[in-house]
């Protein structure tokens, strides 16, 4: 067989391979440059106790989750039961970042759907969200004992993500 005929075939196979891999990638999931970096600082009022504030520095020494949520966010409802369940297991503290929401709406939403958060803080104008590179609510971050972001999950977490990624990483970070 003429070897020259193999060249277009080889080109086709390579292009096909690239496109096939491309199909499995999610363009909405932009890898965060913040993974491996110190969690951006903030000092925000708590949702339920507006007079009190919380800062990531208060959580140094603990592995914790930051979950970005809002009462207007439809897909937050999808992941919410999982978070409530996770909170019940008391494996890891969850901090809620109530993103671009009204305080009353947020409180009511939690009363209605259950409150998995050890603390929720209010980011009414979304500035802290920008510092954390938030672009699609819900988002979930894992922060280690030294205050370094270790993982970011974009969009609603599902049971598989909790079981295969979040819990193992949390346990590993807690053990270290």
């Amino acid at each position, binding site marked *: 067989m003429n070897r020259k005929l193999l060249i277009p075939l080889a080109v086709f196979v390579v292009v096909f391979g690239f496109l096939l891999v491309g199909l499995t990638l999610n*363009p*909405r999931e*932009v*890898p*965060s*440059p*913040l993974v491996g970096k110190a969690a951006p600082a903030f000092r925000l009022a708590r949702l339920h106790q507006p007079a009190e504030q919380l800062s990531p520095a208060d959580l140094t020494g603990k592995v914790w989750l930051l979950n970005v949520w809002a009462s207007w966010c439809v897909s937050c409802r999808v992941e919410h039961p999982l978070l409530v369940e996770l909170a019940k297991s008391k494996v890891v503290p969850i901090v809620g970042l109530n993103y*671009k929401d009204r305080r009353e709406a947020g409180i009511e939403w939690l009363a209605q759907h259950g409150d998995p958060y050890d603390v929720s803080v209010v980011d009414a*104008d*979304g*500035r802290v*969200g*920008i*510092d*954390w*590179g938030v*672009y*699609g609510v819900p988002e979930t971050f894992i922060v280690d004992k030294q205050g370094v972001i270790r993982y970011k999950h974009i969009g609603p977490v599902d049971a598989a993500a909790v079981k295969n990624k979040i819990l193992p990483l949390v346990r590993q970070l807690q053990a270290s």
Partner: protein
Amino acid sequence: MTRAARIARAIFVAAMVSFAASGVLAAEAVPTEQDRATNARAVALSEQLRCLVCQNQTIADSSADLAVDLRRQVREQIAAGRTDSEILAYMTERYSDFVLYRPPVKAQTILLWAGPLLLLAVAAIVVVRIVRDRRMTATPTLSDDEREHARRLLDDDGDQR
């Protein structure tokens, strides 16, 4: 005209005059030269930044909430005296290079930038080879004059030599 009507007319006229006056007072502030420069910079920067919610739009084009917030950030940072490259760095620190419509040249993106040139080079090599092959295998053709000349030489039988 009755008295009531006269009073009503007086009130109407007074109202119109005060409306007109307030219109004059509320004239728009004239933008200064600096405002225009700031505005131009803000627009230019916004056109280089991708909206991460609607990924095929710049934050200048998009009306997504996040785009509005990021435009505000750009303006605030211009007001705070940051340079364009500092503002772009601020965005990439948070949203990675993906936020830039014009990806930077680095090891990861070199194929993206050099790819078209590479393809052009490959195409040029292929074209050159095809042309050369064709020239080698082409059967030489003779013009009518040459043919005539050759025929005469052949018909001569070499007697003259």
